[in-house]
């Protein structure tokens, strides 16, 4: 049996439910532009009916819950894609800077400087006695040295910038991690009271997305709705309310004290995770800093060392205008002889180059098989030079034309590296002798045929096209072109990949929008719907009131 009061109660429930629905609609409209916001829907359901005659009677409506329209799978995909985009975006941005170093279109790059140098050598061969030609050659050689060493230090600067960016990213990651942890706490508190913490979850979702742009993450929810965030190779950055942090470790392995990324367990242990970071912008910076730039710098070192050594060899063999002989044109190469990450006490002594003509520009590794024996390998070509050499402390060892010596007691597995090319680009300079007196440039091969003998200058000029680099397969300018090409291909790849992933992310974002995005048209329709429903419910109250009036009026 129905009752007038029952009618009134139903109408009241409708008023309240629609009021709630209108409020949620209002919230949706208010947040139409809020990043990361997921639209909310009121779950309206009929109140539990009561049994009566003639049948069960409805008891009105209630707003059962407020749900957040959300697809965890898509959010996850977005985060994964965002990791890729962060990585490639950072890589593309840093590579653009690197590329500028190899920009030949203005005619002021290393390629032009090389051509200029050899042009001046040719001019000298036309007039070996000319002081103008000699001065010009010295100045062109100086330009070549300057352009190469400046390019090298610009690359070094870009490495430093990347380093700073990595430190910035680490700070950013830590701040986001602690915000996620405190949101975890708030969400757990709210949801323990059977409330769905929609807006807090959205906020946390957004933080997570930002975090994924910085470093690769893996997440899962515990039963209380708290998120565990693992970074890199499963390091637990956030676990519920607990947060750990990333920290910087000044590395020595990369040579030059660059920042490595450490995971701080909070108990004094720090684990270097640089190598296990797979994506995110931090990976982009690491790639450019530790992969691309060192390769390019090695290339410049090889080029500088090649030019220095070949030109020096020829200049030493010839005679200057003042019959000087055996003079270095460029400052001679030095040996970089360093120890690897060793356990023994063996120390690398200074290395020397006894004969330029026998020098190899490759890197040679001395590896101890036990405390008394070592093998020598050319790591550039991978060729084993000799095995089972007997170690004598301080004894001279020849490797690729370099004479090196080790002191102390190396342990098995210890390594030492010798290279004549390392640092050649950075320190490339015209020798003080030639700089001070251009007569020392050796254009002649015979001191009795001065000053017209230009045969040595011709040999020097021939270096321009002779295949002296990469094991005698390419010329200087071809070699330089291949270094430049590496930068170009890398930059092109990074920007193409970035565009590809940007498109993927856009698609995913659109898919997310279909589920979670607020449509104003929809909300306006909803307003009308809930408003009409509210008006109708109010009308019902009026009707019920009139009914009551009628009943009460019966007595009069």
């Amino acid at each position, binding site marked *: 049996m129905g009752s007038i009061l029952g009618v009134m109660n139903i109408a009241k429930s409708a008023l309240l439910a629609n009021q709630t629905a209108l409020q949620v609609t209002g919230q949706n409209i208010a947040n139409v532009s809020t990043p990361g916001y997921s639209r909310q829907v009121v779950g309206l359901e009929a109140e539990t009916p009561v049994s009566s005659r003639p049948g069960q009677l409805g008891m009105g409506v209630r707003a059962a819950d407020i749900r957040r329209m959300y697809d965890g799978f898509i959010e996850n995909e977005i985060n994964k894609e965002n990791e890729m985009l962060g990585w490639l975006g950072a890589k593309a941005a840093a590579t653009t800077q690197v590329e500028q170093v190899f920009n030949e279109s203005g005619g002021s790059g290393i*390629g032009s400087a090389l051509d200029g140098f050899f*042009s001046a050598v*040719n001019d000298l061969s036309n007039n070996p006695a000319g002081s103008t030609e000699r001065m010009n050659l010295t100045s062109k050689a100086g330009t070549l040295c300057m352009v190469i060493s400046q390019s090298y230090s610009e690359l070094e600067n870009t490495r430093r910038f990347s380093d700073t960016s990595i430190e910035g990213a680490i700070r950013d990651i830590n701040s986001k991690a602690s915000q996620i942890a405190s949101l975890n706490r708030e969400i757990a508190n709210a949801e323990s009271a059977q409330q769905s913490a929609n807006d807090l979850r959205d906020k946390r979702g957004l933080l997570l997305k930002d975090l994924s742009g910085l470093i690769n993450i893996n997440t899962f929810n515990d039963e209380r709705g708290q998120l565990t965030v693992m970074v890199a190779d499963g390091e637990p950055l956030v676990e519920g309310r607990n947060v750990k942090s990333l920290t910087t470790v000044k590395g020595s392995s990369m040579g030059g004290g660059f920042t490595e990324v450490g995971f701080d367990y909070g108990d004094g242990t720090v684990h270097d995770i640089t190598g296990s970071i797979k994506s995110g912008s931090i990976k982009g910076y690491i790639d450019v800093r530790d992969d691309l730039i060192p390769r390019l710098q090695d290339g410049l070192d090889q080029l500088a060392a090649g030019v220095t050594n070949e030109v020096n060899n020829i200049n030493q063999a010839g005679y200057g205008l003042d019959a000087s002989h055996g003079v270095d044109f460029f400052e001679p190469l030095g040996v970089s002889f360093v120890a690897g990450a060793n356990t023994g006490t063996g120390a690398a002594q200074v290395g020397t180059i006894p004969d330029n003509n026998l020098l190899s520009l490759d890197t040679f590794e001395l590896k101890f098989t036990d405390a008394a024996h070592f093998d020598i390998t050319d790591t550039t070509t991978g060729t084993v030079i000799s095995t089972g050499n007997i170690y004598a402390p301080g004894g001279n060892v020849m490797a690729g034309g370099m004479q090196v010596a080790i002191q102390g007691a190396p342990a098995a597995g210890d390594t030492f590296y010798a290279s004549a090319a390392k640092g050649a680009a950075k320190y490339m300079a015209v020798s003080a002798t030639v700089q001070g007196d251009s007569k020392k440039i050796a254009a002649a091969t015979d001191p009795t045929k001065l000053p017209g003998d230009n045969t040595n200058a011709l040999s020097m000029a021939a270096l321009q096209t002779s295949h002296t680099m990469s094991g005698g397969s390419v010329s200087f300018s071809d070699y330089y072109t291949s270094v430049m090409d590496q930068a170009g291909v890398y930059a092109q790849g990074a*920007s193409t990949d970035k565009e590809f992933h940007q498109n993927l992310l856009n698609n995913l974002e*659109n898919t997310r929008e279909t589920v979670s995005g607020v449509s*104003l048209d929809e909300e306006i329709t909803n307003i009308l719907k809930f408003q009409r429903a509210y008006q109708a419910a109010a009308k019902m109250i009026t009707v019920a009131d009139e009914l009551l009036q009628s009943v009460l009026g019966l007595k009069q």
Partner: protein
Amino acid sequence: MRITEGQINNTVLDGLFKRVDALMKSQVAVTTGKRINKPSDDPIGAATASAQKSYLSRIDQYGKNIDTGSSNLKMADSVLMDAQSILQRAKELAVEQATGTASAVTRNIASQEVGGLFKDLLGIANTRVNNRYIFAGFKNDVPPFDAGGNYTSDTGVIMTEIEPNTFVQTNLPGDAIFSAAGGTDVLKVISDLSTALAGNDVPGIKASIDELDASSSQIAVGQASAGSKENLLDTSRQRMDDMKLNLQALLSNTEDVDIADAISQLSIQQAALSAAREVGAKLMQNSLLDFIR
């Protein structure tokens, strides 16, 4: 499918960004005139352009080398012509003074003139271009012939690279032209004539006539040698000029934009951008709110 304002916004923005990006690239191409402005624009093209530029710079250098060699050889050619006239004059004098009509007095006067001719010829043999003696060997900073007409320089051959791996001799060591190394010691022939004239030595004068003929042909050989080298240089210069034109065309193909094409691209992209803006504006304006009171 729910389409939300966010999606429309993103799509419109994404489209606009891409169009602006394309427009900017076209703009850079049109303003610089270059298709390749950094290596990543076209890594292979950039490498090709770099090799072509390097080759162009070498060709320019060959041009300079040819100029230097050519100026030496031209000068040699011209002064050897003068040497021929001197020999001609000496021969005239010798023939004149060998006849019976000449006397000790006329021969003495002729001897004076021949002495002058000797000095002229010595001056020619010691010709300098750009501070270098062109009839010397490597030792070309001092006169190759001393006052007595003796060759004091060496036989060094100065080579100049005029084409990739093609070398041409650009000096003419004077011993083969003016001295005995060529068969006849031209300078000595003249000084002997002068001596014979002064000494009224008729058989000596007669003997020098033949020697003067031999000298003349020896100088002619030198002229021919200079001329043929000069020809070689001219041909090379022509070839290098052609190659330069070719290479410049190739380089332009590699790194320059087709301006007509680039400008039409630019206007297409401008049109596309305005279209995208217009459509975007229309899309974003529409709302249900416009249709309900």
